[in-house]
């Protein structure tokens, strides 16, 4: 089991008022799964993803990642995991402005223990994997939204992580760019990577093999998507 959550809760302190956003979540995710977490806004799905992605810590409960109890990890351990095991794709891309596509993709490598001489090559390989091998030296603000999200995926890939987290990856994109992004994520999953998707859009979620629905901080359904019902995006289209 890659990810194992046991009775996870998360409280937020809103000016003295404690709000319980997650109310005892149990969830297991195996390596190589393509999972969508669904739910309306305010349901706690983003909080859940942040907890699984080590951007945040639970208030209580146990989180085993690759069999290790993560409550024992320090800040630097978590930073290492975020760098080496996990790749994030955000709704708003979060690329560095005034920085080239290549440098944006190479950014995580700066925080890794890899040989700096290999960085450029690795970034190029990651960009080719998302079909942007030609745009290396464009500035991040000179490319379209769909291309930005593909750069962000390349950045998430560059450290060769086990898990890719995508938080509403198509939320800011037109449908064509969105389906390109989804097909890239599908391909990543085919290559054996675990992909965890957070969305409120059923059409996006239907790409996944398993859908976990969350409402008011609790998982209300967890079901497999039969391959006949899955939506498949067309291969890379420019």
């Amino acid at each position: 089991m890659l990810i194992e959550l046991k009775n996870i809760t998360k409280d937020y302190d809103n000016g003295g008022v404690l709000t319980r956003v997650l109310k005892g979540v149990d969830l297991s995710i195996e390596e190589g799964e393509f999972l969508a977490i669904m739910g309306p806004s305010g349901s706690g799905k983003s909080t859940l993803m942040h907890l699984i992605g080590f951007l945040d810590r639970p208030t209580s409960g146990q989180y085993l990642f690759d069999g290790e109890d993560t409550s024992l990890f320090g800040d630097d351990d978590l930073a290492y995991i975020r760098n080496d095991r996990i790749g994030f794709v955000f709704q708003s891309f979060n690329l560095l402005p005034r920085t080239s596509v290549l440098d944006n993709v190479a950014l995580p490598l700066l925080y890794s223990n890899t040989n700096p001489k290999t960085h450029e090559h690795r970034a190029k390989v990651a960009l080719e994997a998302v079909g942007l091998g030609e745009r290396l030296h464009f500035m991040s603000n000179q490319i379209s939204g769909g291309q930005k999200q593909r750069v962000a995926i390349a950045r998430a890939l560059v450290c060769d992580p086990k898990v890719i987290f995508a938080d509403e990856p198509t939320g800011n994109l037109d449908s064509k760019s969105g389906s390109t992004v989804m097909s890239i994520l599908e391909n990543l999953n085919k290559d054996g990577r675990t992909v965890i998707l957070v969305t409120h859009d059923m059409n996006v979620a239907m790409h996944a093999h398993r859908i976990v629905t969350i409402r008011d901080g609790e998982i209300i359904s967890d079901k497999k998507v039969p391959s006949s019902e899955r939506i498949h995006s067309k291969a890379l289209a420019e």
Partner: protein
Amino acid sequence: MHNFINNIKTTVRDLLARKGRSFLTTLGIIIGVAGVIIIISLGAGAQTLVLSQITKLGTNLVGVLPGKSNEKGPPAAVFGVQIKTLSLADVRAIADPGNVPNITAVASFVRGNATIIYGRQSVDTTFTATDGSYPRVQNAEMEKGTFFSDEEGNAGGNVVVLGYDVANELFPSGDPLGKIVKIQVQHNSAQSLNNEVNSGVPMRVIGVQKKLGTVAFQNQDDQVFIPFVIGQRQLLGIDYVQTIRAKVDSSTNVQIVIADITRVLRSQHHIKNADNDDFSVRDLADAIKILTSITDTLRIFLGLMAGISLIVGGIGIMNIMLVTVSERTREIGLRKSIGATNSKIRNQFLFEACVLTFTGGIVGIILGVLVSYVIAIIVRYLGYDWDFVISIFSVVLSVGVSVATGVFFGLYPSLKASRLDPIVALRYE
């Protein structure tokens, strides 16, 4: 090492992307560092100027002033107090080689204000009444003519040597040598108001001194030299000596001469206890020491002022860094989400602050050196003896302080950045 170079590259690129702001940020440091360098350079220049002027008057000089003074402070006579304890008998005793063997010449002095009249021209100036030995005691080079001889001096001949400016004012065109001028003392100091003094003592100009410039805040060219007895008896109507100066044969004997003169004067004045001394013996080194300590104090004071501006510059850096941190909150969040540790974020911003201050320091040094150099050129052009000195100390100090400022004032914003919660940072709008 490679990482370090990469860091520099990234930081410089980041800073260049915000050229205008980066420049304004460093401006405080640039001005501070340039200020420190300019002030220290000017201080050193002014010090050499003052010292070179003092030594222009002659080295190996020992001066005797009436009245007691402590070692460090100025003698009472400086404050205009008239003390009448030195006499011509003292001068003769000092001049006796049996008493003080290591001196080559002695001159006695009295000074006063006088008006020099030639025809319709008149000049208010100071007269220095001294002996014919004056040129052997102090450096007195003549522009024209000669200084009066020992005989003319002792006999009280009616001869006068003009300072450079006085000669120029009285004789704008034409040779002053051989001309008869009248010296009139101002009434306030004249106790012997006989007719001759009132209408002026006629004197023959026998020499004009070379231009000396201003030494120790006194224009050395705005004075005339007359024989001692004329000034003392005829013009001032006094019977004491205001100053005695002696030239020592070599610098190693200065302290011996001071001791000898002190001993001679104590026996002349029947003084048994050093506490009762009614005179002070000083050498030029003392004066230089006093002046040096004054200019040093000034330099330290001004340096501190410039140092304060460096600190203000540092606060400016802190300010801008804080703005930068909040502007780049999302970037910090992103960097954390892709694996940056707190210390990496801290170092990134600290590094940025250091690059800013270091660059500011370098630019400040260049600016400071340039300005100091221009000032030196201007001052030299004005005819002063000015050294262009850039002390390594000031360079090291100001760069050290500016980088320390960067680290110190960059630390708070950097820590603030590193402690941002990645989620909060990512959601920041």
